[in-house]
């Protein structure tokens, strides 16, 4: 269908003083940027140079207005995800859809909401459905650029004197989107068509009033309606506060100054990144890689189609090139294919998330805007999980792959910080923050309900090159890490807390250890019908550790059914209340009834399964990776780890060479001299058991020639080889493989549905996707 211009009475080309359409306006900016290398051709920062105080005054007002609006608006939400964890943000854009400034919060959405605005511009929303003062648009479509459908964006155009002066976007992470699996980051569905409600930049409000058809339709399609509506009000209130703020700034500072600011500040941001790269990094190339498991062949993973029933591995190699001019390029050549699960992403989400990371080291200022993107080249090859180019893909838990892949970028860029002495910025990689406790049913209030416990917002963080990681403290995607209050979670979920404790031995060992995760044991209580599932890494680790540090501990699953706990409570018997300190000791099982059915294994991804009142679910939140050889750890720190229950005795001995005594009260005292002597022995033992790498390569090469590896490993390589001749060539060269060696996916016997035939969203008539990366 071809959209007839002006059929609705909208006139394109009247929103800007220039008379250009929004699309022509944006294209002109892109041309000036490409031609000069400076955003919008701003070779000089005329306004900033001429009136630096005025420039800073506008920035301060805008930034303060954004932060204030977020803080006020989030009090409207009832969802603990928004109100407790701060999963929202508000961002101001110029008329071309480039970010000017943003609030605190989940700032990945600087990019995702900008992509939605650019999509509306590029697809001529100006003509149909029209863009007018008082309009509201809603987007959560991952094919437009969203991360996952649960991130709902409200976008409001800002007019002054009848002309479009900018846009404001507000984002909240809702509890449920009506996907096949309940909870905001669910699995079970394997395609977009089961991934929950999808709203594609739809006009959902006129004259500052939400349209009734949208409100009815959206509530009918999701489970947690009251949270949905209050989140809607949160976003609208924040956007309208910011619109009012910008109007006031225009009146105070003048429309010309504000308009100049809204473009110059982006070039200012671009220059800021270049300056920072030159100040902190080392030019050259860094290569890094990350993986995470997708164990779908297990019987507890129920999916609707046979072709999804396979084990696979996400493969994310990255070559980071820091260029002589201070810009940089991130090339993801060699990534594995997208898949029939909910962990796919798109280039906007992938690259926007990288900014979340970099704001925590490379650009740690309040001046977050689209500028740094213009100093960065991203390459996300088509067909990989970073850029599927297939409109069927599901994205509900895109984070499973995103955070796993980014763990390696932290390591990579940290090598350059370390090289020139900025040890305080080094990050050993961060964890894949999980488990995601999710589920739904009929809750303690008799309502249709769904949950996603955001206790994940406080996992253990990575070690630095001069200090340990923080325990149960943060997650990469939300700079305001918080595990939330037990009392609030118990109001939101029919799950009582049987315990919430630090998780011993979860921080990666090292000279500086990773932060420890924690664990909460939940008992289903007072629900009518209830389901839950697990979502995290188990067979694999996403992080590695850095420069001799170990990765953090991997995940495992514990759930128990038919526990007999109701009877044990009535009889006053012991209950599973504390830690699952050493999972091999099965401590919880000692406090369950004789007929309990326990699942204790490495299967950390499951799909929706029934839980009765009295059943148990262990939510284990992961630790972070370590830095440096553990034998370099200070003796006093090892002692502290033992006395704080951060480290089991067995591993203090094996990893750190610790020699200690323990008194009758359980207090450990290290013997420093004996420990250092034992560490010297361990170094000798390493030399004894180690083999020269080139010698080991011969044995590994033989395994490759014999195709001796698990099916999941082989499938990962086969999918990357198919998508990247370069990766295959480098692999064969490294292992010195015969010229005719190959590993086609066809010979593995794994399902290949979707592997060779793809249909991009851009193949739809009259749909023009916004592409901002090299493909």
């Amino acid at each position, binding site marked *: 269908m071809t959209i007839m211009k002006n059929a609705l009475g909208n006139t394109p080309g009247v929103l800007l003083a220039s008379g250009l359409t929004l699309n022509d306006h944006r294209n002109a900016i892109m041309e000036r940027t490409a031609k000069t290398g400076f955003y919008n051709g701003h070779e000089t920062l005329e306004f900033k140079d001429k009136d630096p105080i005025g420039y800073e005054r506008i920035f301060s007002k805008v930034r303060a207005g954004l932060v204030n609006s977020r803080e006020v608006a989030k009090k409207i939400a009832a969802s603990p995800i928004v109100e407790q964890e701060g999963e929202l943000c508000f961002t101001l854009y110029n008329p071309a859809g480039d970010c000017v400034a943003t609030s605190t919060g989940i700032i990945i959405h600087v990019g995702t909401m900008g992509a939605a605005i650019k999509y509306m511009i590029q697809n001529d929303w100006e003509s149909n459905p029209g863009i007018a003062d008082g309009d509201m648009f809603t987007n959560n479509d991952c094919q437009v650029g969203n991360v996952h459908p649960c991130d709902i964006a409200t976008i409001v155009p800002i007019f002054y004197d009848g002309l479009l002066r900018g846009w404001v976007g507000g984002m909240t992470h809702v509890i449920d989107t009506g996907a096949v699996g309940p909870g905001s980051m669910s699995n079970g569905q394997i395609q977009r068509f089961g991934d929950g409600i999808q709203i594609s930049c739809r006009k959902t409000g006129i004259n500052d009033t939400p349209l009734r058809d949208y409100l009815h339709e959206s509530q009918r399609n999701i489970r947690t309606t009251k949270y949905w509506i209050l989140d809607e009000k949160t976003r609208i209130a924040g956007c309208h506060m910011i619109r009012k703020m910008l109007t006031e700034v225009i009146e105070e500072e003048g429309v010309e100054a504000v308009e100049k600011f809204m473009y110059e500040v982006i070039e200012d941001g671009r220059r800021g990144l270049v300056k920072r790269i030159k100040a902190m990094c*080392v030019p050259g*190339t860094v290569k890094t890689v990350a993986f995470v498991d997708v164990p779908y062949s297990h019987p507890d993973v129920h999916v609707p189609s046979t072709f999804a029933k396979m084990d696979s591995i996400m493969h994310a190699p990255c070559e980071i090139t820091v260029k002589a001019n201070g810009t940089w390029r991130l090339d993801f050549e060699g990534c594995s294919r997208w898949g029939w699960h909910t962990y796919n992403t798109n280039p906007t989400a992938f690259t926007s998330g990288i900014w979340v990371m970099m704001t925590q080291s490379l650009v740690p200022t309040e001046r977050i805007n689209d500028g740094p993107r213009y100093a960065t080249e991203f390459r996300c090859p088509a067909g990989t999980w970073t850029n599927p180019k297939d409109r069927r893909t599901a994205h509900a838990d895109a984070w499973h792959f995103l955070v796993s892949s980014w763990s390696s970028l932290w390591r990579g860029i940290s090598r350059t910080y370390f090289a020139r002495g900025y040890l305080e910025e080094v990050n050993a990689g961060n964890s894949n923050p999980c488990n995601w406790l999710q589920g739904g049913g009929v809750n303690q209030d008799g309502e249709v309900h769904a949950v996603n416990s955001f206790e994940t917002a406080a996992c253990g963080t990575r070690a630095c090159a001069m200090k340990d990681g923080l325990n149960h403290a943060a997650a990469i995607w939300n700079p305001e890490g918080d595990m939330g209050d037990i009392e609030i979670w118990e109001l939101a979920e029919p799950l009582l807390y049987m315990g919430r404790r630090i998780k011993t031995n979860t921080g990666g060992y090292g000279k500086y250890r990773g932060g420890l995760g924690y664990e909460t044991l939940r008992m289903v209580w007072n629900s009518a019908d209830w389901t839950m599932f697990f979502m995290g890494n188990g067979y694999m680790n996403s992080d590695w550790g850095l420069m001799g540090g170990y990765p953090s501990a991997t995940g495992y699953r514990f759930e128990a059914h038919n526990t007999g706990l109701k009877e044990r409570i009535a009889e006053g018997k012991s209950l599973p209340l504390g830690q699952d300190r050493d999972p091999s000791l099965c401590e919880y099982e000692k406090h369950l009834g004789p007929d309990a059915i326990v699942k204790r294994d490495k299967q950390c991804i499951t799909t929706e399964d029934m839980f009765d009142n009295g059943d148990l679910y262990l939510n284990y939140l992961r630790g972070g990776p370590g830095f440096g050889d553990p034998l370099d750890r200070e003796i006093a720190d090892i002692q502290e780890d033992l006395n704080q229950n951060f480290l089991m005795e067995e591993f203090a001995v094996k990893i750190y060479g610790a020699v200690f005594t323990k008194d009758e009260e359980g207090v450990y005292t290290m013997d420093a001299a004996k420990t250092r002597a034992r560490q010297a022995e361990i170094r000798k033992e390493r030399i004894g058991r180690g083999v020269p790498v080139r010698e080991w390569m011969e044995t590994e090469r033989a395994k490759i020639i014999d195709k001796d590896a698990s099916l999941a490993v082989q499938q990962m390589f086969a999918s990357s080889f198919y998508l990247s001749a370069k990766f295959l060539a480098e692999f064969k060269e490294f*292992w010195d493989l015969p010229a005719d060696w190959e590993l086609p996916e066809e010979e593995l016997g794994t399902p290949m549905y979707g592997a060779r035939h793809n249909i991009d969203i851009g193949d739809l008539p009259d749909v023009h996707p916004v592409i901002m990366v090299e493909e």
Partner: protein
Amino acid sequence: MSTYTKKQVSDLVKGTLDWDTVHLMLSMPKDEARYKLYMEVLQENVSYDDKILLAVGPHLNIVESSKDQEIIIKCDCGHEFGHYSKNWKLNALIYVRDNVEKMKEVYPELMAPDTNWQVYREYYCPSCGIMHDVEAPTPWYPVMHDIQPDLKTFFEWLDMPAPAKI
């Protein structure tokens, strides 16, 4: 621009720097003198005379050899891993944790990877046994060549004379 003393940089390397100063280092613009002070501190921590140019790890540096001015990678103990443009790991010792028993030496049961999916590769110095790196890839994965610095540009950025043989 912030400035720090050599003692402060030395304490940073030792991990004993006070938190107030660390916080300053994190929150203020980076100090241009850091590289010079850092190299001086690292140089004092090793017994060899070769000039340290960049740090690759807590005990591993890129140095300009005092013998022939070649740029090589060198362990604190003096062990040489070869030219800086090559992957030092290929000249290290390796120990691969590729079965359940080997993994149980580092993590409790259920808290280590399944070695059908992922292995740990530990890289040791052949002379002193320091563990310079741990990789956690799938089986078959090529050894990672982590960093290949462009030293010529780096010294241009620093506005310092570059070593002769880069």
